[in-house]
């Protein structure tokens, strides 16, 4: 009889421990995921990744890559304007021709600044960091 009660107590304790562990895992994973996504990454994933991919890889022959893209390296002076106004027509990126219109995005200077630097510094890209002034200057001179 006494043994049984003891067993029951032990059982309760294990259940509690099990729950504590489960909750612990949950909290830790939430914290980890909130640390790993900075605002710049979040902006990129919200506004660009659906087409260009979470790793900037593009989509087959439809959408050009942003990771290690020669075109992007050579056209840094147009980057902010492309985000703001979109781009269309034939475009050769890493030797492949793309021709699919991209819409402009209604983003503010800081969001554009964040996205550009995130792309320039991700997935093996090693392109110089630009300032918010650079972005503003570019946007004043969009064609």
């Amino acid at each position, binding site marked *: 009889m006494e043994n049984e009660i003891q067993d029951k107590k032990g059982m309760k304790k*294990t*259940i509690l*421990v*099990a729950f504590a*562990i489960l909750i612990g895992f949950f909290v830790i994973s939430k914290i980890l995921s909130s640390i790993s996504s900075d605002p710049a990454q979040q902006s990129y994933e919200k506004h660009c990744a*659906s*087409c260009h*991919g979470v790793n900037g890889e593009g*989509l*087959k*022959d*439809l*959408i050009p890559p942003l990771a290690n893209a020669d075109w992007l390296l050579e056209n840094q002076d147009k980057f902010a304007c492309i985000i703001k106004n*979109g781009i*269309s027509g034939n475009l050769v990126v890493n030797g492949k021709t793309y021709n*699919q*219109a*991209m*819409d402009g995005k209604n983003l503010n200077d800081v969001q554009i600044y964040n996205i550009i630097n995130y792309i320039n510094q991700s997935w093996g890209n090693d392109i110089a960091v630009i300032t918010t002034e650079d972005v503003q200057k570019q946007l004043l001179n969009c064609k």
Partner: protein
Amino acid sequence: MKSILFILSIIFLFSCTEKPKELPFYGMSVVNSPLGLDTIFNPLPNFEFTNQMGTKVNNETFMGKAFVADFFFTSCPGICPKMTRNMLKIYDIYKEDVNFISHSVDPKRDSVEKLNTYANKVGIKNAETWHFVRAPKEEISKMADTYMVIAYEDSTVSGGFEHGGQFILVDENQFVRGFYNGLDDESVDRLITDIKLLLKEE
């Protein structure tokens, strides 16, 4: 040791509680008994489209196999690439067992040749399982109505066409069995599990 076993058994229990569910039927229903207790759903009406190879496809082409449908147009500057990306994810898993139809809502610009180019660009080299189809405007609206989704010309939206981002799941007998948001990863994952259920049903 005992507590580890216990945790494992809890996890095991949780993973078993989900009952195998059956997918619902959608569509225009006809109430078919005097008491109104039996609801019978109609399958898709007759349709005929032209695919990216210039071949005519109709009900018969798709009969006996489930398919997933969506609406798009090749010069779409907005949501279409994301839908195509998600459709490709499903295609990669189920291309042996399920067919796919992407309805162009832009018959003026989307010639057979344009559709063919688009299909090739996303890596679909022939129309064995994935048909990119065109049809006269009225046919497209009729089809959208049957699926109960939105697809119409609207010069005020980007690209000139309004079309919902839905994926529609149709079963082997051409009854509509599910609607999903082709722009939402979780909804697409639900479609992937629902197809599994549907294939078990067959």
